């Protein structure tokens, strides 16, 4: 079965680009959230295998959203997305359970590699 | 209004705790009174022009245009075999539009349906043993006994209106 991914990013452009990259690679994008509240709601309703999470979101910092997501959907892998310059937050995110981070602007290869690795991690844990 | 008085008199005993009330839309099928919870009723209207639809069981009168929605019109008298001989539906009948999970259906009735409020406690749950008789008893929520001795059969639309129930041909229920 295709792995199901939720994209959280406040930029429509970024979401679309990520979505195209992921669906082209055969993943199923089950939802796109533009803010923290939507993210938590969609994570609950869609139970994704993986969530890509922007570190800076309008209604909340990405970190708070990460903590909520870890609560409502503890099995979902979380990969942070960030442009350079926000390494401090990213490091804190990793400490709070995010598996990896993708630095914007990202290449398709890099995104697929990191997402693939994060999901691989999932397979190992269940195996 | 009769229904309001009814509510007031029965709530006197437990003034401290408000009694849970139920609002029903009551209509006649054959010689019996039937009720549906008002939450399940979308509207009551004079039956619009019904177009007979081939390939449907006889109790589906056809389809009608209800404010742009095309809905199926059901005749429960025929479905439950309650129609007294020689009493066809009158020229001017009424349609109770009821809401199932994700669609609307119309139930055609002879007389103007009336609202009735009564305490929930007056509705007795339907007895268990009638589960498999295939007709109306399967769709009962319960039976309401009014102080004047009249009885209202309360239907649970959610049980009645599943697509497979609606499309079930009455002659085929037993054999299949």
């Amino acid at each position, binding site marked *: 079965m295709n792995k199901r991914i939720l994209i959280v990013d406040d930029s429509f452009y970024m979401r679309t680009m990520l979505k195209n990259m992921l669906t082209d690679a055969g993943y199923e994008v089950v939802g796109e959230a533009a803010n923290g509240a939507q993210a938590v709601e969609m994570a609950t309703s869609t139970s994704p295998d993986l969530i890509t999470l922007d570190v800076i979101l309008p209604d909340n910092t990405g970190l708070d959203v990460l903590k909520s997501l870890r609560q409502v959907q503890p099995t979902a892998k979380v990969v942070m997305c960030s442009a350079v310059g926000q390494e401090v937050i990213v490091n804190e995110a990793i400490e709070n359970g995010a598996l990896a981070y993708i630095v914007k602007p990202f290449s398709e290869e890099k995104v697929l590699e990191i997402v693939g690795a994060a999901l691989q991690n999932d397979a190992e844990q269940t195996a | 209004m009769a229904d309001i008085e009814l509510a007031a008199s029965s709530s006197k005993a437990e003034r401290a705790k408000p009694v849970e009330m139920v609002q029903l839309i009551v209509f006649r099928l054959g010689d019996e009174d039937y009720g549906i919870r008002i939450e399940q009723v979308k509207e009551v209207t004079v039956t619009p022009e019904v177009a007979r639809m081939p390939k449907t069981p006889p109790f589906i009168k056809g389809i009608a245009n209800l404010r*742009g929605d095309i809905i199926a019109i059901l005749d429960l008298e025929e479905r439950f075999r309650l129609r007294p001989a020689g009493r066809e539906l009158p020229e001017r009948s009424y349609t109770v539009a009821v809401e199932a999970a994700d669609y609307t259906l119309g139930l055609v009735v002879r007389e103007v349906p009336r609202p009735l409020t009564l305490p929930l406690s007056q509705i007795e749950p339907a007895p268990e043993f009638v589960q498999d008789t295939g007709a109306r008893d399967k769709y009962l929520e319960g039976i309401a006994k009014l102080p004047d001795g009249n009885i209202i059969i309360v239907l649970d639309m959610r049980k009645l209106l599943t*697509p497979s129930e609606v499309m079930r041909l009455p002659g085929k229920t037993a054999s299949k």
Partner: protein
Amino acid sequence: MKTRDQEYREMFMAEALEYYDSMSRHLSELERNPSAGPALNELFRLMHNLKANARAMGFTDLGEMAHHLETLFGLIRDQQRTFSGALTRVVFAGVDAMGAMIRAIGANQPLPDAQALIENLDRLVRGEEPVFEEDEVAETDEEAGKKMELSDLVYIQVKKLDNLLNLVGELVIDRDRIMTLAQELDNPALLATAQHLFRISDDLQYSVMDARLVGVGVLLNKFPRVVRDVASAEDKEVELILSGQDVQIDRNILQIITDALLHLVRNAVSHGLETKAQRQQAGKPLVGHLTLSAMTERDDVLIQVRDDGRGIDTEAVRRKAVERGLTTANIAATLDEQAVWAFLFEPGFSMASKITDISGRGVGLDVVKLALDSLGGQLRVESELGAGTTFTLVLPTSIAVKGALLIEVEERPYAVPLMHTDTVLALQPEQISVVGGVLLTHFQGQPVPLVPLQLLLNDEGDEPLPLATRNDVQGAQQVLVVNYNNRRLGLVVDRFIRQQNIVIKPLSKPLDTIDLFGGVTLLGSGQVCLVLDVPALTRLFITKRP
């Protein structure tokens, strides 16, 4: 031609302009209240997004400017700098410069130089005072003439467009009703108003349909990846040629055919095109060619999947159809290529693995057919053994309005979509023969079976239709010849009413399980009219013919 890159660019532009507007708004707020937390957070976020998006698009100068401003706003947010004095001036200049850059990108012009500004931002970040050149003071006078920019693009949920389309559908129906009334009442003023309403609602309908159109490219551009993957799994070399990406089609139609197209393309690569060795043996170039193209033909959109592979082995399909009991050997022998290929679209037929081995075609073609049927579209096949196969999907441009023929049976109107009608005939009894209990006539040199539509509509149970006799044919017969999958069938009706454009509403539950009806439409009179589904009628006739 709209490529994915162009779409990204449009999205980027729309969002960048939106960001720029928000920035200007938040800056004015900050000017009034220099410590407004939410405004600061927003500015920081907007700069951050603009930086990331600009870099992804390769607009490094814009990204650089946003990056510097983001850093500075980070410092202001953390209260290491205050939004006052010279800093304010540099920030405003910086945001203006970004606006100019975004506009330049939109106009395909070179980005203005902003080196001096970047240096000033650097100074502020380092805690130094900015340095202004003389003529910069004059520039602030231009502020007054600064243009306000709103995005030219609006994102809208498809659901909202669906709703709009439905409402327009309703409007058109009422319009027709008013038109009828006006003609009946014969009041010149009313008639003139009705005609005006007619024109306006026509325009409105056209506009709503137009708003739903997208370039076929949004789907076609997904295929290079699919083809690459399937080809590499099969160890084939395939050159994919795309064309017609800018052909416009309703977004929902594109959605519905996505799987069908995916099916056809995968099939073409894995079964249609030969292996390198086979191609070499056949004297063909080693690289297989696959063309995915879209074009407009009258009101329809054609999407073609063309390969230069092995083609369909018609004789193998013919044998298989007989083996599977779809036809008899005698009849099979008389069928032409098109009629034989039509078997490929029969559900289940194609599941036989042998067919795919021999003909290289077939897996799941019935699925393709079903998607097209649901849209009232058609599938055309051309194939030459050894030279290749072309599948053409004929699709309506828009879902909303379809041409239909209104007919009457047992005093009730029914609509038949024109897409499936061939012709109408008034037949005299002597033009009709009875063969094996089936009425038959000849049209364009071909035998066409006839069946009273009333029989099909009222048919119940599993028994075949009653045998037809000569007595069934009394007087002239009104016949509508329909065509599905290259099979002609003459429906005997009571009367033809007229041809009319209709808006088809889907049947709601629980009636949507009756496949004989493709939906329902409201006539100008307000009457409910069922829309007949020709594919389902044809299938019913084939299974029930005596």
